[in-house]
C-alpha cells in the first residue's frame, strides 16, 4: 500500500464564489488507486474542493479558481484543456442519485458512451460489466429495459456509479454518495467504494467520520477552507498530529 504514485497533484489551490473565498491555498497529493476521504465540518469547502478537481466548480455563476491541479503531471486548468473532455477522465457521483429520466437502466449505464462518440458493438457486455462492477447486476439483470428512475434510492445510486465507471475514468469523485440513501444501501455502496478503490483513484467527500474510517486509505481534514491534516486514515483517526483534528474527530465541535 505504501508504494503509491500520485494521481492528482493539487498545489496552492484557491476557490471563490464571487468575493467569498472558500478554499485557501490547498496543497495535496492524491494517491493513485486508493480511496481518499475528505472530512470536515459543514461549509468547510470539501464539496467545493471536490468540484475543483474535475472543473465542475467553474459551472457555478461567478465561481473562480486559482492554483494548479495536475492529473498525471498535466495541469487540468491549462488553456489547452477542454473541461468537457477532461470530465471523461475524472468522473463524479453526486449526493442524490440522478438517473436520467425516460432512459432505461441499460441506457443509463451507456449514457456516457452514447453521447460521447457511440456505443461499441459489445454494449450488452459493457452494461453487464458495469452493473456487476457497481454490485447491481443481480438485482436488475431481468429488467434492463425498465426506467432507471423505477429503482430504489440505493439502487439508483449504484446505477449512477455504474454509469460513471462505464466511461472508464481514471478518477472517480464522490460527493457524499451515501447521504441520501438508507443504512442497508449505504453499507452496499461503502463496500463498493472500497472494492472500486483497487482499480480507480477515488476521492470521496463525507460528513460521516466512521464512514471515512471504514472506506478510505487516506483522509484529509479540512476546516474553514484550509487543509488541516492529510494522512493515512488509520493514523489520522488514532493519532492525529494537529489539535484541531483531534478535537473534530473526538466530537468536540462540528
Amino acid at each position: 500500500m505504501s508504494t503509491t504514485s500520485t494521481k492528482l497533484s493539487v498545489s496552492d489551490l484557491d476557490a471563490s464564489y464571487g468575493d467569498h473565498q472558500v478554499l485557501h491555498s490547498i496543497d495535496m497529493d492524491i494517491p493513485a488507486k486508493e480511496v481518499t476521504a475528505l472530512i470536515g465540518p459543514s461549509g468547510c469547502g470539501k464539496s467545493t474542493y471536490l468540484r475543483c478537481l474535475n472543473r465542475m466548480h467553474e459551472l457555478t455563476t461567478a465561481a473562480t479558481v486559482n492554483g494548479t491541479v495536475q492529473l498525471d503531471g498535466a495541469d487540468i486548468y491549462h488553456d489547452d484543456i477542454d473541461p468537457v473532455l477532461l470530465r471523461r477522465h475524472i468522473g463524479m457521483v453526486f449526493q442524490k442519485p440522478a438517473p436520467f429520466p425516460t432512459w432505461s437502466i441499460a441506457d443509463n449505464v451507456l449514457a456516457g458512451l452514447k453521447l460521447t462518440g457511440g456505443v461499441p458493438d459489445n454494449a450488452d457486455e459493457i452494461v453487464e460489466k458495469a452493473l456487476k462492477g457497481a454490485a447491481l447486476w443481480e438485482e436488475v439483470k431481468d429488467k434492463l429495459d425498465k426506467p432507471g428512475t423505477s429503482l430504489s434510492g440505493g439502487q439508483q445510486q449504484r446505477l449512477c456509479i455504474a454509469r460513471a465507471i462505464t466511461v472508464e475514468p481514471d478518477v472517480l469523485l464522490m460527493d457524499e454518495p451515501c447521504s441520501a440513501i438508507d443504512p442497508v444501501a449505504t453499507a452496499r455502496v461503502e463496500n463498493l467504494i472500497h472494492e472500486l478503490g483497487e482499480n480507480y483513484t477515488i476521492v470521496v467527500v463525507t460528513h460521516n467520520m466512521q464512514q471515512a474510517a471504514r472506506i478510505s486509505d487516506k483522509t484529509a481534514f479540512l476546516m474553514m477552507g484550509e487543509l488541516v491534516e492529510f494522512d493515512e486514515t488509520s493514523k489520522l483517526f488514532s493519532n492525529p498530529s494537529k489539535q484541531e483534528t483531534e478535537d473534530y474527530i473526538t466530537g468536540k465541535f462540528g
Partner: protein
Amino acid sequence: MDGASPDSRSQSNRRALSDIRGERASGLRERVIEGGLFACAAASVLTTLGIVVVLFMEAIPFFFDVSLLEFFGSTQWTPLYADANFGVWPLVGGTLLVTVIAISVALPFGLLAAIYLSEYASERARKIFKPMLEILAGVPTIVYGYFALVFVTPLLQQVIPGMGGFNALSPGIVMGIMIIPMISSLSEDALHAVPDRLRESSYALGINRIQTIWYVTLPAARSGIVAATTLAVSRAIGETMIVAIAAGQMANLTMDPRESVQTMTAYIVQLSTGDVPTGSLEYQTLFAVGALLFLMTFAMNVIGQWFARKVRNQ
C-alpha cells in the same frame, strides 16, 4: 406558574371558558363569510355550467333536422345558401389548418426561447426577456388580426405566388407569434424545474451542454412541454379575431395555406353579427358548431392539465 394557588388557576380557567364562548359567537360570523365566499366561487362554476347546458340544449334540436351523419359526413358547409349543406368538415379543416400553421411557428420559437431563458440566459437577460415575451400575449387579438391582414398578407403575396388576400397562412403565422409566450413560459418553468444534479451528472460524464439539453434536460421536462403545447393548441383552436379578420369568410375544405378558409370561430362571428332569425335552423348551426368547438378545446385543456399536473408531481 408553579406557585399558583388552586384558586387563581380556576379563575384563569373560567376566563378561558368565556373566551371559548366568544369564539362560538364569532364562529357564526365565520360561517356567514365562508358562505359568501362559497357563493362567489360557485357563481363562476355555475355560469360555466349554465353556458355548457345552454350550448348543448340549443345544439341538440339542430341534430333533429340535420343528422350526425350529414354533419360529420358531408364535405360542404353552405347553411346560408338555398341549397343548404351542413357538413362541418370545411370549418374543422380550416380551424385545424390555421392551428397547425400556428403551432409550427410557435413550438420551435417558443421552445428555443424557453431553452435560451432556462439554460443560457444570465439572470439579467432573463429579467429583461421574460416580461418582453409575455407582452406578446397581452397584445389585443384585434391588433394581431389587423397586423395579419394589412402587413403580413401583402408581404407574403410578394413572396408566394397565388397568395390570396384572405388566406390561412398569414393569420396562422401571426397566431403562432401570439402563442409563443404560452409555450415558452410553461416550457421554461418545466426546464427550470429539472434538478441541477441531472445536468451536472451529464456534464460529469463528459457530455457537452447541447447534448445535455437535448438528451437529458428536455426529456426530463417533456411533460411540461407537452402541457404547454396542448394548451397553446387549445388557444389556437379557440382564437377568433385574427382568423375572422384575415382568413376570410369562405368555408372551404382545403389544405392549401394560400387559400381563404373559414374557421369554426370565424363562422360563429359571421353568423352572430348577421341577421338570421332566432330559432331557425341557420341560427341553430351556431350552437352545433359552438358545441363542437367547446368539445375540442375542452379535450385539449383536459389533456394539457393532465400533463401539467404530472409536471408538478415530479
